[in-house]
């Protein structure tokens, strides 16, 4: 299978070609203009177009035309994301806590299994979070639960195993797209923006 075929297949399969998980194919798209054009042509002939994520670290294919069917599909995808939003946000909270950082984890960040297991061993709240994430597949063995979660994320292509010897996992560009979709919901609904209302600021300014 040629690189072009491999890339097109991945894109048509709702896949994301990112610099982290598909380093070689990403470089090919970025550096080989002929290949990029060829991929774009194939996608165009199938009513698709190639899009780069906000950070530029990932490529994905979208419906090129807006018609009744594509609109319906977009809405369907939106409903799926809304349904899964809680799960994704819990995942982000879980990894932020396990890495002892305030900001959410993002595409490209690495997770070492041993670090995760260590954090879990020392934190009951983290264990509780993980149990909630796994639902009825929760276990009393911390490392079993950690590998279950990591396996789930690998299956859903949010994570990939970068180093099988030392069990180092890395988040893929798909995470960025999910975050982008969730942020879209936040912005459209002006969630958490109560404090930054321009009128409020104006009033405060006048008072001063």
């Amino acid at each position, binding site marked *: 299978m040629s690189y072009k075929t491999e890339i097109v297949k991945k894109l048509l399969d709702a896949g994301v070609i990112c610099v982290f998980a598909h380093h070689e194919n990403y470089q090919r798209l970025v550096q080989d203009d002929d290949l990029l054009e060829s991929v774009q042509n194939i996608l165009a002939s199938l009513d698709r177009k190639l899009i780069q994520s906000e950070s530029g670290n990932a490529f994905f294919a979208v419906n090129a035309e807006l018609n009744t069917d594509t609109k319906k599909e977009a809405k369907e995808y939106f409903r799926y994301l809304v349904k899964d939003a809680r799960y994704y946000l819990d995942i982000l909270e879980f990894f932020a806590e396990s890495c002892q950082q305030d900001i959410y984890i993002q595409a490209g960040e690495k997770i070492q299994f041993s670090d995760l297991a260590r954090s879990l061993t020392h934190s009951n709240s983290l264990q509780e979070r993980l149990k909630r994430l796994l639902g009825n597949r929760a276990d009393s063995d911390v490392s079993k639960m950690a590998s279950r979660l990591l396996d789930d994320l690998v299956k859903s292509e949010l994570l990939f195993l970068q180093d099988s010897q030392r069990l180092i996992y890395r988040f893929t560009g798909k995470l960025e797209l999910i975050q982008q979709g969730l942020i879209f919901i936040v912005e459209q609904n002006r969630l*958490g*923006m109560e404090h930054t209302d321009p009128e409020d600021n104006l009033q405060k300014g006048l008072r001063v």
Partner: protein
Amino acid sequence: MNSKHPVIRLIEDIYSSRELIATLYDSEGEGVLDADDPSTKRQINKLSNLQLLISLHGDSYYLESDFTRLIDKGLRQDTISYLNSDVGNEIKKINHVFDIYHDARIKGQISIVRKNERELTKLFIAITQRFNATAEELFKRVQANYGKMDYGNDRARENKFYQDELEQLKESYHQVDKFLDAEVFQNDQLMINLSISYKGRTMGFFDKVSRTLTLLKEFAYRAREQEIRTEKLRALLDHIEMHPTDNFEDTENAVLQCPVFMQMSDRMKSTIKIRSYPNIDNDDFEEAYGEMIEKISVPSLSSEPFSREPSIAKDTDLIKRVREQSRADKLLITVLKQVISSNKPILASDALSDMDQMSMSLEYWLYFLRKNYSNNRRIGRRKIRAILNIVPILDIKEGYSGNAIMKNVVICPTSYSHQAINQYYHGKFDVK
């Protein structure tokens, strides 16, 4: 037992991986290692366990930044930490040499003046090179850090370190600048000339510093952006917790503004719909289309006018089987009549050839006979078992395991015993 001090053990481990460390240090950033080589692999594992080696992707690795800095410091290279910690000494040296030079000039000691003139020139060249090299080094490292594209705690800490180093570097430069502005130097032509050439030669330094600063700011901006994203996502989490049944139906109509939703969802993979017709004649697309068309099962449209080939009836396997069954049925009835009328045994193979039914295979005919016999088939309301016997002739090979191949069948009236069959065929077959 003689147990080693852990520090000695650590140094020994590092020493045993010295070649790999040197290779990676020289590669300034990421280096590709041959992990298939057992010796290299051993060294990689050792350094990885010591957390001094970081894996990037595939066979690419880099040395842990604190470890690299330690080597920099040890080698006393023109690196950030060395220059930043030593600039005070450089100033002191310049001051000291200038004092000797100045004194010698007043006293008219030409040889001392010349010697210290050379010394001052050397010191100025050295400090110029150090500033330029450090700025260059800092820029390279910041660029490499910026290029790593993730914003975890490690990256943020590294960025903060470079920010501090840059500030210190700028501070050192201004310290030298201020030092050279001293009145005592302004009255000396040599120092004026050296200061001018120093400032001229460090013009590139400012360029590098400003580019480094841009990258640092850009990184900080990206990190800040992620902070904002996190705040927004947490706001969504709070909202979902407060309103678990909110499906954001009002937002549904706006989804087309966000390209992410125009992508196929994972869950919709199975329903991938392609509404256009791929141009199969295009060689460029041929390879890619092959598998795609197979997957999406879209009929291709040909530009040729539609024409239909005349249909030709072909025997399918099912039709062949039905026909064979019907022929076997006819043959069975014929054989039945023959056996009743002649009251003699007949071999199934002979019956098949006599009846000119060669289009039927012997295997099928034997199978048919055995099946009808064992299923107690009736012909004309009479069980065939009551009319004839079907005795198999087995092909028993040496080392008989219990499974034997049926090579023929004797169809005979029920009055024939196995012994009678054997007699009839003069012992040709040993029917048991």
